[in-house]
């Protein structure tokens, strides 16, 4: 759309974009439809002999939504979650959402612990395992919260917020795992130096303990990174489409990315 003729209605479209409070993909679809209709109506009026400024004015008068129409469009395109929680006040809803997030974090912690107990991996657990499990729980809860915010709640006011934290937390989980293994190895080396006769009993136990620590941290960090990657890719597709449509500097870095983008939007 950028390489085509001059987009007469682009300033109006940009202004409307700021006033339309619906998820980004719906927003872009609505405005793309509107701009195409505005352009087509303007062209038709001009073809009928109407002066260009008058054609623009008449097209805008007929098709550009006013505040009431924008509000009705927002109502129609809002998410099911938003519709069903509309009756609750914003403070109450925020409290409920935060409580749900806390419950989700605790649930993940319980599930992780249950899996470790069932696998009999807590008998000689490293103290670092608890740090890793705690980081993993927060990581899962953050990914869940972001998925909820973007895809269920449809709140796209600040879509990038919190995405970086997911990656940092995944990194922290991994560092806690590797760091724990290093500390455990150093401690074991110290004990064996003082009492070499403990090697046959101590080494197998510590191997299991550190393998568990390492596996759990890699697994949790990997899952967190996967969540981060999916969210980032989706956000990138949606944001590129929006920026390109609004002519705000969005660009596709490669033809394959554009192809992928068009397939995803289709």
């Amino acid at each position: 759309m950028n390489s085509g003729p001059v987009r007469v209605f682009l300033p109006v479209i940009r202004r409307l974009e700021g006033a339309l409070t619906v998820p980004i993909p719906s927003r872009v679809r609505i405005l793309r439809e509107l701009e195409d209709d505005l352009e087509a109506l303007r062209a038709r009026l001009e073809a009928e002999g109407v002066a260009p400024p008058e054609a623009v004015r008449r097209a805008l008068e007929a098709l550009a939504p006013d505040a009431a129409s924008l509000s009705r469009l927002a109502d129609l395109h809002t998410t099911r979650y938003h519709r069903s929680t509309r009756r609750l006040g914003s403070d109450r809803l925020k409290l409920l959402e935060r409580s749900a997030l806390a419950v989700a974090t605790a649930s993940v912690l319980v599930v992780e612990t249950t899996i470790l107990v069932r696998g009999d991996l807590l008998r000689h657990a490293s103290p670092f395992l608890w740090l890793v499990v705690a980081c993993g729980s927060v990581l899962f809860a953050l990914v869940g919260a972001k998925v909820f915010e973007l895809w269920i709640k449809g709140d796209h006011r600040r879509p990038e917020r919190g995405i970086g934290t997911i990656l940092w937390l995944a990194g922290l989980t991994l560092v806690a795992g590797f760091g724990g293994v290093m500390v455990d190895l150093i401690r074991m080396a110290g004990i064996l130096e003082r009492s070499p006769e403990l090697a046959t009993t101590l080494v197998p136990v510590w191997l299991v303990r550190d393998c568990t620590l390492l596996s759990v941290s890699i697994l949790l960090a990997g899952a967190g990174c996967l969540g981060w990657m999916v969210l980032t890719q989706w956000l990138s597709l949606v944001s590129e489409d929006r920026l390109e449509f609004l002519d705000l500097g969005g660009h596709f870095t490669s033809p394959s990315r554009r192809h992928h983008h068009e397939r995803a939007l289709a």
Partner: protein
Amino acid sequence: MPEDDFDIQGFARDINELLILSALRSEPKHGYQIVLDIENESNGLFRFRHGTLYPILHRLEKEGLIRGTWSKDVGRKKKVYSLTGKGRRHLSGETGRVEDVVSRLVRVLRGPDQAPA
């Protein structure tokens, strides 16, 4: 039609919906074509202003009365609306209802003295 159910504001809103459905009866159209056709066919009586068309179009699409599809035209994506079977049936049924309401209204306005024999 039970008289208790009649809502004059809802009726006015329904008219806009029916105008859009009737504009799509013959062939699929873009939004601006719907606006122009309704205006032309009603000799300027029915006009959509200030983007009131889009909330109605999108609601009808959600209700399955019309179908919106994106087509590519000279490199640009355009949305075209067509009437669905459900929309056609709805239009047919509602046209009968509008006729009934209007005939009752005219009867009331003319009064018993001017009623046709």
